[in-house]
């Protein structure tokens, strides 16, 4: 009986909310915003995919050109081919031609959040030498205004605007009735405030959840931004649940504020300030906390260290000493080969190994910092509903900081793999040059272009599911807490 009555009450409240023109205006604005956000997201993902395709095409082109050079230079020719012009030489190819890319492909849900993708490129060309003091040198400058203001992506609409929509729909429920005197009429009926509040806020929650999920689904379909979600259904469902919990959290917040019986003005002011705290002030404070817990090592100090290493290598006979020491470690009969240590490629390999060693502690510190900052960000993110949802969206989109720091580490490992691939070949050529025809201008010691290691792609689906689950748990806990507080406060009508 009671359930039937509650269903009737809920139906009446649904009709009441849907009769308001404001409801439709706000929901229309929400759906338009979602579609626009999905459209910008789809554009971004398409650009990322195009960039990956371009990188792959570039790799192919380089191999094609190198093979053509092989054919061209395998015949006698009067021209002089320097090592930096010779893709048929292992050292020349590795240092001046090879286009090996470490790439971070978008996930099927990439459309959801731009995340860190606008400051951290998803493509890094492996390069050797000194210019890269750190792993994260890849940089694609563009509009700084966009970076400052942030992207208009789905994460923005869902994390920032959806709460405002909920506040517009539910923020003054009960308190506006209190202001206008309707509450007196409601209260005089044989019904308690908890039941009325449950029906009123339940109705708004239903409408807001249906509009948010439906709007998002519509936006995804219209924009075509969703990739092939095979295997990602669980992540998508968990995200939808987390999103519903986020909407419910804000509805519960509205109910709690209404239970203060302070009137519409105070309710609106409190809710908007709460919104500003949860979405802006709290994350900023958490950001400061992360900075305090995982202080950023100085880039300038690392640059200084790299330069000290460079000075050391190029001062006096130190470079020669380092090179021959390196060679001794690699090749046993080095002493029997006078002049080997002066070969530019040997000097270069020894120098880079020396730099790597000199900068290892700085690189490690930077990697440790990236890992620590990401871990602290992950832990602290659960303290704000906005950050925990945003993180879930970013992880699902594969644009979160943690994936990027893993990508940077994978990129660095890839560079080491490439060097490990080329080093023995370069040494072999230095020790025992490959025979070439009389008058052939090039070295012709390297043709294993297809054997060059490729970067292993990773698309972390489990992390997406895990983070969405964490977000769902946190948001449900927050919602229940607020709803319980509101329920406790709503024991009686205000006199």
């Amino acid at each position, binding site marked *: 009986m009671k359930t039937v009555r509650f269903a009737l009450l809920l139906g009446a409240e649904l009709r009441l909310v849907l009769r308001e023109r404001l409801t439709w205006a706000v929901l229309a604005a929400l759906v338009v915003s979602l579609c626009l956000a999905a459209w910008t997201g789809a554009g971004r993902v398409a650009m990322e995919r195009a960039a990956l395709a371009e990188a792959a095409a570039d790799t192919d082109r380089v191999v094609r050109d190198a093979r053509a050079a092989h054919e061209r230079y395998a015949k006698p020719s009067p021209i002089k081919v320097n090592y930096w012009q010779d893709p048929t030489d292992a050292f020349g190819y590795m240092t001046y031609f090879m286009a090996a890319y470490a790439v971070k492909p978008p996930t099927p849900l990439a459309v959801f959040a731009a995340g860190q993708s606008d400051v951290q490129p998803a493509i890094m060309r492996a390069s050797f030498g000194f210019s890269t003091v750190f792993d994260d040198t890849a940089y694609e400058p563009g*509009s700084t205004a966009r970076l400052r*203001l942030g992207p208009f992506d789905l994460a923005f609409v869902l994390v920032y605007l959806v709460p*405002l929509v909920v506040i517009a729909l539910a923020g003054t429920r009960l308190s506006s009735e209190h202001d206008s005197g309707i509450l007196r009429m409601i209260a005089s009926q044989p019904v308690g405030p908890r039941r009325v509040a449950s029906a009123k806020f339940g109705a708004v929650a239903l409408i807001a959840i249906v509009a948010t999920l439906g709007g998002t689904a519509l936006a995804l379909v219209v924009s075509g931004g969703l990739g092939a979600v095979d295997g990602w259904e669980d992540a998508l469902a968990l995200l939808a649940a987390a999103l519903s919990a986020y909407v419910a959290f804000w509805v519960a917040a509205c109910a709690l504020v209404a239970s203060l019986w302070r009137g519409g003005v105070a309710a609106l002011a409190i809710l908007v300030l709460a919104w*500003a705290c949860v979405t802006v002030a709290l994350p900023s404070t958490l950001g400061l906390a992360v900075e305090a817990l995982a202080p950023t090592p100085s880039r300038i100090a690392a*640059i200084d260290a790299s330069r000290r290493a460079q000075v050391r290598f190029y001062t006096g006979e130190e470079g020669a000493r380092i090179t021959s020491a390196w060679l001794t470690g690699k090749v046993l009969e080095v002493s029997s080969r006078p002049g080997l240590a002066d070969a530019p490629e040997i000097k270069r390999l020894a120098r880079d190994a020396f730099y790597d060693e000199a900068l290892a502690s700085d690189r490690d510190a930077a990697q440790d910092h990236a890992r620590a900052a990401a871990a602290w960000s992950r832990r602290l993110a659960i303290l704000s509903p906005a950050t925990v949802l945003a993180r879930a969206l970013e992880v699902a989109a594969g644009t979160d900081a943690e994936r990027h720091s893993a990508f940077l580490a994978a990129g660095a490992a890839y560079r080491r793999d490439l060097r490990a691939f080329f080093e023995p070949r370069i040494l072999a050529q230095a020790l025992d040059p490959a025979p070439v025809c009389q008058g052939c201008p090039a070295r012709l010691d390297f043709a294993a272009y297809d054997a060059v290691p490729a970067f292993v792609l990773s698309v972390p689906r489990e992390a997406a599911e895990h983070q969405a689950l964490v977000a769902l748990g946190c948001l449900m806990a927050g919602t229940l807490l607020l709803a319980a507080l509101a329920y406790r406060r709503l024991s009686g009508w205000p006199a």
Partner: protein
Amino acid sequence: MRRLSAELARTARDARLRWIGAVLVLLLTVAGLGAWRDSARYAGEVAQVAAAERARWLGQDAKNPHSADHFGLWVFRPSAPLAVLDPGTEPYTGRMVRVEAHVFNDAVYRAIQDAGPLARFGFGSVADIVQLVVPLAAILLGFSAFAADRERGTLRLALGNGVPPGQLFASRFAALFAALAVVAGLPLFGIGALAVMSQDHAGWQVVPRLLTWVAAQLAYTAVFLLLAMLVSLVARTARGALAAALAVWALLCVAAPRLAVVGVDAVVPALSYREVRARIEAGFRSHRTAEANDARTRSVLARYGVGDPGELPVDLRGLMMSENEAHNFAVYDRELGAFFDSIATQDRALAWAGLLSPRVALQALSQTLAGTDFAQHAHFVWTAEAYRRGISERMNAEIRDHPQRGGTTLVAGRDLWEEIPPFVLQPLPFARALADAGVPALILALWLGLPALLCRPLVRRLKP
């Protein structure tokens, strides 16, 4: 005048003002002092490493000038003194450039890369607080100006007793604006003064910059105060006035700025940096081949009418490097010039997009006045590149003009290194900033004028 002092007294007694003022002063002070500390630390590090780099350049071993060109150095962009107030584009652009032979390196290591994901959510800077929170403060103070009186019936009482509505409006606006100027303007001025006094600000013309900057922030504050009062003039209830003013705030400060960027990106797209770099690479590729090199060598010999490099009056390697660099410079100038131009065009379009939101207009205006706009970054990038080219040209000229015979290598020493001056970045002059600030300033003035204009007839026909 009596009415103004009465309104001032009323505003000063308002508990809301004390709360809002305390929060604003706290937020601005924390953000400002944090930025000031970071900026002082960065300036100290830059000064130290720049001196060390100079010493390393001068103290390098005697070697071939081209090796010295490869040895190179790092140059650093000093932060603008007013970046403490508005870091503008600085955290989003690289601040360090590796100057070396052949390569126009990117300015790398942006503060935003190190800031962590949470920092990008919130207001990292004083300027962000002004752009987002100060309007909220103006609304919370201004929304009740007339609506609450109307609801209580005191507006009917006042108007019925012959209080001229124009005077009422003007004195209320003046009192609220004065209150906001105290709680927002003074802290801004204080932080700015601290930043200016504690840092080297040669060439920055900091006093006019600081004054115009604070004035721009106050104008922006006034826009939202006027909007809140405008809503208050027509709303029947205080709740309605607050709801409408908050909706305006959410639209203008939260949603519209990002929408404006989307619109500008769609209408005036900037060139893709990746594609620009790919074009540069393609521009070099054909020039770098052994065949092309051979053809150029032959054409040099033909130009001098000799058959053997040894017969040349100049060093062939030096001459060819010099000519190669000239080719590279042209490619860089063409491609990166177009890229930076496209960003500048987009920035100009974005200033016009301020018509969609005063926050966008203020952001453009504020960073230009503070000297932290993209123009200053581009100026740094090209100054560093010009410095790099100066070194390369001097080193190549040294080789070219000292032809070596019999396989010997030219070796130069400190005399040559000393010919290269230290890297100094003179900021773009304030006059340039004023010229760039024209459009956003005009648009902010429009934002100020429009509600003021709308208020006039509403005040005249004010309904109790």
